[in-house]
């Protein structure tokens, strides 16, 4: 045949093989790459200056190696031996690895299927699509999460994470995966994903602390396990810090609620709460005080870099930094509440604050300390709820009382 091994055409095709391969590689953007966790160079760069003696990449890489020893790789995650288990590793195993089903039809790779595009393999919030999103996807490695039922400084509960996965965050790129729960086949997916997010957060926080130790020249022999244990414990204790909102069902009369809203408006505009400084007097998010979130401050202000000056923050781009963006105050009149739009959700946001963002927890009146009473908080919730352009119940009859 014309394609026998001695033919001219055969030899030409054979010689062209490298060109074919390169052509395909060009068409596909790049050759196949191993999926690995990315070292946290940005954190290392925010803690120390790059120098020939102590290159940033080296300290980040050293910490990365220690963490891989403890927690494994993206395809084969493991839990450090000798410390209390803070996640369900069977579920972590199902969420990790490449997407697909095994011969028993059990699905795995849930994280790469649903999350990696934005949150990245390491949970660093630097997935391929991240730079185009506003706000940027969450970096799990600080162990900080915004919408939860625990106070600032405490880890979110497992149900908090599942809730965010299920309901999504309105007005952001975070999808609601509640549809998965409707199918029997995918019903356990969100639970598995929440465990994997916990796993990545614990892993990432241990890595950050190890980088700090390495930069400070501490002995890292037994440190990784100690740090892992400490971080894992903080996650295990999350449930004990959980706060639940009182039931705020609208049982009052319309007159009572109008009075409550008026009272809430006073609280909103007061110096004590200073809500209007960020959210604006009309609650439209046009306040004078606007700030960056903690994820940005981490590598800018805390590292002596002005996030408003491009010349300064641009030096961190090579370590994976994305352009600093102001964490704008919510326009309360739009009715878009990321953490949930019920009165109970708003109550929790006011009482607990939003971790990592400029939104603080409200100062409660305790003993002789100045602050807002429980009734005042409820009035404030009623007022914020009334500001929304969407008034699902009787409040729609009371328009005009809200923002103005």
């Amino acid at each position, binding site marked *: 045949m014309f394609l026998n091994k001695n033919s001219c055409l055969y030899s030409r095709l054979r010689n062209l093989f490298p060109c074919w391969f390169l052509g*395909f590689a060009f*068409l*596909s*953007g*790049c*050759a*196949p*790459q191993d*999926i*690995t966790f990315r070292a946290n160079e940005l954190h290392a760069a925010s803690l120390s200056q790059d120098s020939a003696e102590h290159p940033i990449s080296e300290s980040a890489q050293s910490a990365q190696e220690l963490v891989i020893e403890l927690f494994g790789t993206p395809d084969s995650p493991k839990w450090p031996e000798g410390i209390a288990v803070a996640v369900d590793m069977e579920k972590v195993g199902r969420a990790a690895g*490449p*997407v*697909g*089903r*095994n*011969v028993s*039809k059990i*699905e795995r*790779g849930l994280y*790469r*299927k*649903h999350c*990696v*595009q934005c949150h990245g*393999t390491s949970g660093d919030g*630097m*997935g*391929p*699509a*991240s*730079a*185009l*999103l*506003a706000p940027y996807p969450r970096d799990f490695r600080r162990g900080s999460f915004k919408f939860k039922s625990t106070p600032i400084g405490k880890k979110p509960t497992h149900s908090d994470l599942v809730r965010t996965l299920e*309901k*999504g*965050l*309105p*007005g*952001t*790129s*975070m*999808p*609601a*995966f509640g*549809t*998965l729960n409707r*199918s029997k*086949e*995918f019903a356990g997916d969100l639970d598995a994903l929440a465990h994997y997010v916990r796993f990545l957060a614990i892993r990432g926080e241990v890595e950050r602390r190890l980088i700090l130790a390495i930069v400070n020249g501490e002995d890292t022999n037994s440190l990784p396990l100690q740090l892992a244990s400490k971080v894992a414990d903080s996650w295990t204790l999350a449930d004990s810090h959980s706060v639940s909102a009182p039931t705020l069902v609208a049982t009052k009369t319309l007159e009572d609620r109008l009075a409550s809203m008026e009272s809430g408006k006073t609280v909103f505009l007061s110096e004590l709460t200073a809500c209007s400084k960020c959210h604006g007097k009309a609650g439209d*998010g046009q306040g004078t005080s606007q700030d960056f979130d903690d994820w940005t401050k981490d590598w800018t202000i805390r590292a002596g870099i002005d996030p408003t000056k491009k010349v300064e923050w641009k030096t961190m781009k090579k370590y994976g930094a*994305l352009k600093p963006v102001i964490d704008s105050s919510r*326009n309360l*009149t*739009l*009715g*878009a509440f990321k953490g949930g*739009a019920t009165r109970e959700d708003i109550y929790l946001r006011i009482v607990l604050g939003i971790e990592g963002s400029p939104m603080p927890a409200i100062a409660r009146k305790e003993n002789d300390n100045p602050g807002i009473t429980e009734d005042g908080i409820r009035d404030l919730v009623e007022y914020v709820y009334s500001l929304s*352009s*969407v008034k699902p119940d009787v409040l729609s009859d009371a328009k005009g009382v809200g923002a103005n």
Partner: protein
Amino acid sequence: MWEVTDVSSPWVHRWAMMVTLLTFPLIWLGGLVTTHDAGMAVPDWPGTFGYNLFLYPMSAWIYGPFDLFVEHGHRLLASVVGLFAIGLCVVAYRTERRRWLVGTCFLFLASIIAQGVLGGVRVLFDARTLAMIHGCSGPLVFALGGFIAMATSKRWHLGFCKAGVKGLGRLAVLLLLLSVSQLFVGAHLRHSLPTWLPSFFMSLVHTHLLLAAIILFVVLGVTILVRLPSNREFREFRSPSNALLAIASVQILLGFATWIANYATPWVELTPWLARYTVQGKGFWESMIVTGHQATGSLMIVCSLWLVCRAYRQSSIAEPRKQTTIESKNSVPKDYQAEAVNIGVE
């Protein structure tokens, strides 16, 4: 009068149309496989969970997980398309007089087989990069089927006038090249790898947007060109031009919708509705929009090719308009003769 250049059995055209029309839903299903990341829902190939592809229990397929349903369905439909392509080759071999067209039919069959093998290798090696190439070449195979359907149509046999719209051919080729490039960039975005840097993905998105703007511009150029008063007599370009304008418009809308379905709108505070909009992960309509955007892209390629064929087919006819006569009437089926005369009278 219009020239009748060559005539073959209408059955080749019928088979070609059938295979091409079957290839489009195949592209849809392939798109759904990508949207639902279902490429590895069946971990073996060419079988399905150890069964022969055609013997996999129907109930396990229909009532199984959605990703398995989509992936196995994609394989089954691909096999059906392959079988019909074999039929096309047989019919073309027996009835078609143009040997180059018979060769093209066999090339079409070979490309379908190669596409199937590529999809299989993607599964065996679990290689997302191969999935990307599979996604790029699928619409090209579809376009090849479309080309065979065009080359066997009555219109092709009748030929076209010689003096055509000046510059349209080059514009059509440019549009075809742009559409194929856009397909490649789109396939990259759809199959992005977790290892990619955000800056790379961002540059791909910007390239995709830029190409979309250029394509729209070229499509508008084509539309204006074929509607110029001086080109009024060349009605044969109206249909591809109209189709391109319609598809490009739909495609732009689907592009915006795809972004919103995947990542929400960038202008969340524009209206309360946008601010409250929550992206639905793997929602039905979201999947349809995203997949529809990809499938419409392949239609864009076929329509560009349609315009290219009409533009260059016309200039390949030797005789000038209104001076040609129907030759070899005995070899022309009656229906072709009638249509040729009717068009000539116009």
